């Protein structure tokens, strides 16, 4: 197992490096000189000497490889640079918003898993009956409905029936748990619907596949109760691909949040990202993109570990 972990960790390095290079090149491709954008952005008349001095100060006069090395080195020591819009350190801006986004993502995941496992199982067990058809239509619809629009509809309904407005300020979980959950359950629901649809479809198709296996037939032939066949024999094996999908979707949830946070007026990572793109705050954009990509790679790694732990065959391959 240890060897497997080390092997997987080493495999992460080229991908991480590649992601960093891509993000760095993207910044270079953005065209224009960041210093010019920063100092002459609003048409201010800044003398050329100051621009040059700033370039030297930021190390932009060095060769591109040196710049890349510095950037990489800075990140390893936790220095992500300074936001070109607010002037605050990027890491500080991100950290203050991370809690909210992660909480919504975790809530959406819990919601999705709680919905997907029973629904997917029911759908598979009652294949081609009205239960199955209903669940399938609901989950295909979930793939098509934009989560931000679902969020708007939820707000619309809450507004007309309970006169509830999305609050203007965010209440942290530890300060007032009830208030906090009431505030975040709706965005979690809006992104969780799509999430649960993906997981439900995966649950259904893998369970159907597993139920065809020989050992299920053997178990049934031995006279094992159907309930036990499903829960012990089939579900435990059908869970693996579902774990993958749930993990990958969790990593990509930040994407769903990018739009939904706008609707619910939540000041999270997603909103920060959209603002940064709209304001051409390149340092912020690159840090966020890198953060999300690294997060995805780490989640992938965790899934692999989980797989190896759940299925010993993988470790010994």
């Amino acid at each position, binding site marked *: 197992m240890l060897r497997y972990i080390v092997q997987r960790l080493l495999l992460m390095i080229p991908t991480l490096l590649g*992601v960093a290079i891509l993000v760095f090149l*993207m910044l270079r491709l953005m065209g224009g000189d960041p210093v010019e954008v920063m100092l002459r952005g609003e048409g201010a008349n800044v003398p050329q000497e100051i621009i040059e001095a700033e370039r030297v100060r930021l190390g932009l006069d060095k060769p591109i490889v040196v710049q890349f090395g510095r950037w990489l080195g800075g990140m390893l020591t936790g220095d992500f640079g300074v936001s070109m819009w607010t002037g605050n350190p990027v890491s500080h801006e991100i950290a203050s918003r991370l809690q909210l986004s992660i909480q919504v993502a975790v809530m959406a995941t819990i919601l999705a898993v709680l919905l997907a496992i029973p629904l997917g199982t029911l759908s598979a067990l009652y294949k081609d009956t009205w239960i199955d058809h209903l669940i399938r239509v609901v989950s295909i619809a979930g793939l098509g409905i934009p989560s*931000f*629009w679902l969020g708007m*509809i939820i707000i*619309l309904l809450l507004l007309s029936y309970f006169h509830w407005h999305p609050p203007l300020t965010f209440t942290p979980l530890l300060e007032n748990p009830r208030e906090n959950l009431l505030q975040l359950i709706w965005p979690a629901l809006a992104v969780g619907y799509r999430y649960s649809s993906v997981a439900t479809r995966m649950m259904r198709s893998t369970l159907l596949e597993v139920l065809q296996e020989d050992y299920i037939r053997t178990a049934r032939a031995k006279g094992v109760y159907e309930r036990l066949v499903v829960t012990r024999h089939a579900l435990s094996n059908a869970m693996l691909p579902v774990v993958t999908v749930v993990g990958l979707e969790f990593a990509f949830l930040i*994407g769903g949040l990018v*739009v939904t946070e706008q609707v619910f007026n939540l000041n999270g990572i997603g909103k920060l990202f959209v603002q940064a793109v709209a304001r051409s705050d390149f340092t912020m*954009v690159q840090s966020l993109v890198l953060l*999300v990509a690294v997060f995805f790679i780490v989640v992938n790694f965790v899934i692999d570990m989980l797989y190896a732990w759940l299925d010993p065959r993988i470790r010994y391959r």
Partner: protein
Amino acid sequence: MNPSQSNPQDEPLPLGALAQAAHAAPAMTLPGAIQVDYRIPKRRHPLVAFMRQQPLGTAGLLIILLMVLAAIFAPWVAPYDPLDVDYAGLLAPPSPEHLLGTDNFGRDVLSRIIFGSQTALAVGFLSSLIGSTIGAVIGVASAYFGGITDLIIQRLMDIILAFPIIVLALAVVAVLGKNVIFGIDWNLIMAIGLPMIPKVARVVRSSALSIREMPYIDAARTAGFSHVRIIFRHIVPNVVAPYLIMLTAFVGQAILLEASLSFLGLGVTEPTAAWGLMLSGSAIDFYEQAPWMIVFPGVAISLAVFAFNLFGDSLRDWLDPRIKI
């Protein structure tokens, strides 16, 4: 098949000695014996066959056709000009004159939805076509050349896959800015198509890999055919099915992505009629007065994506159920 045997009447057609014997000796047929149907399976037009086997996919296809027709004939179908501002009738609720109401500029919501289908379909089809085609080319090349080429390409694809779709699209929009030619923002199309490339490349690569091992590829190589000829004559026809499936499936995703980007104000811009754009900005401010401004464009997006997903799913089941989208 011998043409004289074709039988339009659908009657049981005796075929072969066994059938002949059964007819010659009726005494041997016991009451209640298994009836064997010797009819030649009728050769249906593929479209008819698809419609019979995949009713859900057909429903999706019908919705898509309806959308395409609405987009083509928009100037004739739409009751108003989508850009027509009417300050006398701001935020009018649905009525016989304005079936789906008007927005905060007095523009007819129904007309804007009908014209919005042009934007959705154009962006959806173009980005999906470009993304899938580049992906397919990369996938085939990666599988055919193998070795170090394959390794490098696959690592590159892994890197692109590490970005959430919308984050990647937003980053590309931020980097490239706008580039409008023929009324279409090609950078937006690239931004939406780019995240599809690695996914298509993966699926096409795995299909092409199994083809590469076939003896006829070896035969073609031995015969001294060029790489180009082998790829286009022998490999490409075999990866058309996964390519088409991915292409269809991604049109829906592209429409969704375009709507999300436009909603954020970073995709299609005013005054063009686009569904995501209709939901952005002012629509949120008029939640209470004009819920129709929010409800109907969202229904249009959902229905379009739903239709393409349904059709894509069925197409996959029909062409090659093993492909994971």
